[in-house]
């Protein structure tokens, strides 16, 4: 038995938030992408309820363009922890004619996820969606609340947010509203990596350097495969790369890297001079890209 617990303040805060979600809402769900932030959330949720199981399911909105390594990892994690996993597919939303597939050079299914997510919220009557967004990711996120109230259309109204004082969270909502909950709001990318290392948390292999067929466009490294639009002159090369953020293949750029262990990765992040979102093709579209997506219900 260890003696005195000196808390890690960011971890303790996150556990506090996750317990508030479980206590204040009827049907919470954890939005799980298979990326490092949502994996960290799962560990924090384990800590919040141990020795009981995590009292809410995971929801994966699958674009159909995920890295196979991520899906494999997701299924293994769910199996090991005995969690309930709900998968809803963007392909279904396309087939139902609710959204239209983008075409051409920068096409991605990333923004199409919103419709699938909102449909899933309605289908399961989720009143709280726990997400791994961090305030350091992007400017519009810096103003996000820990409990962010959305209307029936999932919309975010930046001028009408509830002030959050001390650590008191107000999750009271009306029928039809739901709340996006962000337990790791106050973590930085480096915090997440250092935590994964300290806690020895398993993450998908694509976060580590590996050989991959890629091509270069706009100074970024794109995965070369059938889901990613590529022009004839864009040549495919075999390079050692890893991913810093893991989303849809069409919107996640790789970085050249030799980092094969967590120590290497943490070292690289510390030295890094490109922000994580700099490797997100979806944010490069315009300076206000994230803010615009959030207003229409993106998580």
């Amino acid at each position, binding site marked *: *038995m260890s003696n005195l617990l000196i808390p890690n303040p960011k971890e303790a805060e996150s556990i506090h938030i996750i317990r508030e979600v479980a206590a204040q809402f009827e049907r919470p769900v954890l939005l799980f992408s298979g990326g490092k932030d949502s994996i960290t959330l799962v560990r924090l949720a384990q800590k919040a309820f141990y020795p009981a199981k995590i009292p809410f399911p995971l929801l994966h909105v699958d674009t159909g363009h995920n890295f196979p390594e991520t899906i494999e990892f997701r299924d293994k994690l769910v199996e090991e922890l005995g969690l309930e996993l709900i998968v809803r597919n963007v392909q279904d939303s396309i087939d139902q004619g609710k959204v239209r597939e983008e075409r051409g050079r920068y096409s991605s299914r990333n923004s199409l996820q919103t419709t699938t997510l909102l449909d899933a919220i309605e289908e399961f009557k989720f009143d709280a969606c726990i997400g791994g967004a961090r305030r350091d990711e992007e400017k519009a996120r810096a103003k996000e609340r820990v409990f962010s109230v959305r209307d029936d259309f999932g919309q975010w109204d930046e001028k009408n947010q*509830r002030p959050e004082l001390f650590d008191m969270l107000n999750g*009271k909502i009306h029928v039809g509203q739901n709340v996006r909950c962000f337990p790791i709001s106050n973590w930085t990318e480096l915090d997440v990596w250092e935590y994964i290392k300290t806690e020895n948390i398993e993450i998908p292999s694509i976060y580590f350097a590996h050989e991959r067929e890629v091509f270069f466009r706009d100074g970024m490294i794109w995965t070369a495969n059938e889901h990613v639009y590529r022009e004839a002159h864009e040549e495919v090369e075999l390079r050692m790369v890893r991913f810093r953020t893991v989303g849809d293949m069409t919107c996640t750029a790789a970085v050249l890297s030799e980092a094969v262990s967590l120590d290497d990765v943490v070292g690289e992040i510390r030295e890094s001079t490109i922000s994580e979102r700099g490797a997100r093709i979806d944010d490069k579209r315009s300076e206000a890209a994230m803010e615009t997506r959030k207003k229409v219900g993106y998580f």
Partner: protein
Amino acid sequence: MSENRKLIKIATAGSVDDGKSTLIGRLLYDTKSLTTDKIEAIERSSKQRGYDYLDFSLATDGLVAEREQGITIDVAHIYFNTAKTNFIVADTPGHVEYTRNMVTGASTSQVAIILIDARKGVIEQTYRHFFIANLLRISHVVVAINKMDLVNYDEEVYLKIKADFDELVAKSDFSEDQITFIPVSALKGENIARQSEEMPWYVGNTLLDHLEVLEPADLEPSSVARFPVQYVIRPKTEAWHDFRGFSGMLYGGNLKVGDEVTLLPSLNTSKIKSIHYFDQEIQEAAPGSSIAITLETEVDLSRGDMLVKSGELPSSEKQISATICQVNNKALTVGKKYILQHGVNRVLAKVDQIESRIHTDFTGAEDAHSLKLNDIGRVHFRLSKPIHFDSYKSNKSNGSFILIDEAEYDTVSVGFIE
């Protein structure tokens, strides 16, 4: 996250054009927290606007509306770190809604940086910013006298502002050692991370050095242990058949296995059997820990109840007086009912009497019939059930509450119990 790096939480306050965003941008730049793509974006925007310098304020001004109007409209959170310290900055705007925003930002901060434009000196806004720091009992205030480059780095200017500010300090609850003055130029980077050669007369630390020497333990005054029950963990599995863990965050002081405890509101007593942090059993937990506690005896204890050490009972009252800050457009009026959330506990509250509206410039109070957005006042409430509280002065988390509108569910007020 690294366990050997401490966490310091800072709120910044300044009037419009005091250069607050520039100061934060400068801190980010000088600690190499801005990445090349962000610096490029700043260079691009600065150029587009025809500036001949890097406009660091662009590093923090977030939303489209803000960029269009050139103002900050809400509390933004900014993160940076040095080798020894993680910093969280709650950047609060300086315009008319500053009270609500600064109270919000300051509620989660240990340190406040108050910016003063060296050309303008101590102005009415400075009074108000300092008043809020005082109301929220911020542990440490840094007065950054900015734009020293525009007053020829003149020591006389600095001394005059310091003397004016000291008069304010005398009217407050702060002691002199809680206040530090630093002359800076955020635009030029003087005394931010680099000791200024332009101001050899200033022998103190740079802003960054000063923030680094602060110790979180010194910034969180110790009090007595308060453990509000957040969620009851009942695994109902073979291995953990009888486990009933009362989970929550511990505030104010340590709790350890074997402690005699009293449960509120029942006033039943028991003893701590075990303390759990994930899969570890620990002997003792320090404040700020998110833990689960089991008790020696079967007791009735659920969310919103509180566990304290026997002999250290808080006040339990159905009538309370508090200083209220109104953070919503809807006014607080006599007779109005609210949901009062005290920590994780909720009761109904009715406004019995509004005693006064307090001037936020240390000039006293006046009679009031309602409190509007950004007003601060003294209010008496009647509650549906007693709450178990301490004065805000002796325990911040157990001495504060929020009011939730009964119909709209918005957070409309924050209260500090006397």
